[in-house]
């Protein structure tokens, strides 16, 4: 299996909000990087914003990984949001109806504003 060139970093905004920045490719091989970032969420986190502005490529394996992340987040009663998707990947989220479970926002600012609402 091809190794994914995924890098992630997690920025804590406040006690309840974490931003995970995703860079590079997201495929099935990205599980380690993505879950390592998610592991920093902790019990008090209620919202996780996935920043895809550094995303270069994502395939269906990557979509499947996001579904798994969504399942884990829902188990912890956490909400997932996404920002920074280009038009192509916004369409992919809409086509796969992933946007019905992961709220999509243009920018990180917009996503964070939505957490306050």
């Amino acid at each position, binding site marked *: *299996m*091809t190794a994914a060139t995924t890098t992630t970093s997690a920025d804590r905004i406040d006690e309840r909000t974490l931003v995970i920045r995703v860079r590079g490719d997201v495929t099935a091989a990205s599980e380690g990087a993505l879950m390592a970032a998610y592991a920093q969420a902790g019990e008090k986190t209620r919202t996780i914003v996935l920043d895809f502005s550094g995303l270069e490529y994502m*395939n*269906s*394996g990557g*979509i*499947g990984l996001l*579904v*798994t992340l*969504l*399942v884990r987040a829902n*188990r912890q009663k956490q909400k997932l949001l996404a920002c920074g998707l280009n038009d192509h990947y916004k369409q*992919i989220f809409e*086509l*796969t*109806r*992933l946007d*019905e*479970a992961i709220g999509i926002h243009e920018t990180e600012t917009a996503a964070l504003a939505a957490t306050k609402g």
Partner: protein
Amino acid sequence: MPAGAINLNVAGRRLVGPVQGFGQLWQKTYRVRLGSSIEPADVIREWRTNYARFWPAGNRFYAPPTGLEPGDVAVINAASVGGVQVSTGIRVIYADDESFTFMSAEGHPAAGMITFSATRDDAGVIAQVQLLIRANDPFYDLMLPIYGHRAEDQVWIKTLGALAAHFGAPAEVTMERTLVDRRRNWAEAKNLWQNAAIRSGLYMAGRPVRWARRLFGRRG
């Protein structure tokens, strides 16, 4: 559509992914080794071009003749319990040299994604079918332990077996099954309304009536 094909439960239907289904979320992975004399791209090219050829007998896959491209819609007529031919469909959401992915139409037994891929490791090329699916509604969910899991396994084991035979490899298919989410989406129980198996069964049961209408319509 070719003569004899049943084209139901596809037009006007939305796609249903692993988020929209009712039942528990399963990841199922089927693999077969194809040897080292071919390349993954050769496998995918053949599979996309002649997808229906590798399906088990009794099941039909009707797709555009140009090979599977993103956006293509295919009608499936699948053999099911009691001789019912379940008519449903899929849409190709991804396709490239290394893999292609289907997503189900509303009413399909499995809500989710199926990815077909070929990769190479030190021992050669591996063809894989990976499902990330939920039973679409409570009826399919009830049938899973009785019939669904076994039927699904048979489809993909036979498909990969046929693919292996095409490339001259032994049909030794391995299978892994992982329960990703044991919770059910009760809000999606309403998917039952779109159930393609039930609708297909009712359509087949109505054949005598349609035949009589055509007969008396001609005479009248």
